[in-house]
């Protein structure tokens, strides 16, 4: 039911604003966050470097066009071509809070601090990635066009 509601909200294109502290407010339009979280474009080269780092957690689950990376996951779609499948705004929402599109997803919400359970003290109150890091990764993903 919750899935349907947020899904319907996405279809109706209702804007939504993050109220929590620790993250800057952003607006969801349709199934996307059209505007940059920082107001500027990210850096694709930095985005790639960050995405393949273990600490960003992406390639724990995903594989992609990273031939130099020996250890990649297969819990999630291959990231090759994601820039062809999705707009920057759609990619941004998938990173910011994928659970708004699929309440049952296992993909973590990278820019969210509320509604979480038993977060460890060293991580509490902080999003997994900063707004700058998300913009860098979005800029990189947008270059992946098969």
């Amino acid at each position, binding site marked *: 039911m919750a*899935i349907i509601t947020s*899904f319907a909200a996405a*279809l109706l294109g209702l804007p939504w604003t993050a109220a929590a502290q620790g993250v800057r407010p952003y607006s969801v339009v*349709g*199934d996307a966050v059209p505007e940059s979280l920082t107001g500027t474009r990210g850096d694709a080269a930095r985005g790639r470097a960050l995405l393949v780092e*273990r600490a960003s*957690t992406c*390639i*724990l*689950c995903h594989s992609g066009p990273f031939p130099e990376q*020996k*250890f*990649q*996951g*297969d*819990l999630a779609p291959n990231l090759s071509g994601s820039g062809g499948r*999705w*707009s920057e705004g*759609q990619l941004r929402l998938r990173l910011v809070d994928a*659970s708004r*599109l*699929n309440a*049952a*997803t*296992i993909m*973590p*919400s990278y820019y969210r601090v509320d509604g*979480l*359970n*038993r*977060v*460890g*003290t*060293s*991580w509490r109150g*902080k999003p*997994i990635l900063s707004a700058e890091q998300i913009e860098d990764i979005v800029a990189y993903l947008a270059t992946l066009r098969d």
Partner: protein
Amino acid sequence: MKLLGCIAVLTTLAGAAVAAEIPQAERRSGYSFMTADTEAMQDEDTANPGMLWVLDGEALWKRRAGAADKACADCHNDARASMKGVAAHYPAFEKTLGRPVDLEQRINLCRTNHQQASPFAYESRDLLALSAYVARQSRGMPIEAGSDPKLAPFVEKGRELFMQRQGQLNLGCINCHDDNWDKKLAGSAITQAHPTGYPLYRLEWQSLGSLQRRLRACITGVRAQAYDWGSPELVELELYLMSRAQGMKMEAPAVRP
């Protein structure tokens, strides 16, 4: 484009709805996810590093300790007979506490109550050695933990803990170990989390380690607050995992990557 996106979302929704327990016939020990080399290391006592702890445990079994100046063997005699199958029933219900205790806690209850000695610290060499020695006496026997009806509410709590999403990554045990056990997380096999071999030697740890250590590592892995050593929550998780593995064979001391 928008419509295509919606269809993709709906397809994933349908795909994500499976989340079911693993059928009996498909249950697999962590052993069967390993390379032949690591399997051989577990199978050969002379190659299995865990046997060093078992040998230490055998010596401790016979050593007198505490104000009572008694050894485990003074009450239990030969462990090969008296401890056969015991570990396959743990965690077990402890009447005086009204809740389940795991094997390490049972050993420490004997230390304090019967030997009048101080309890061993969690993950200390001595506690790992004694629990490895006791668990070894159940090798090859089927897991039977959790069948005592008094344990039912604790098994249920463990099941809830297994399902709860937690931590900054917002994942539950179930998301990996029930729903994705045939997949790889950054190259390493996600197993079904059957605790058949504990305490076990992990190549990554370069040491023997308890089931509680393993559980705390998975909890920290999703960036959640690990429950304290010996906390009711960890024992309930241990109990749920053991009852989920009922009928599977004990392998302690196992080897894992």
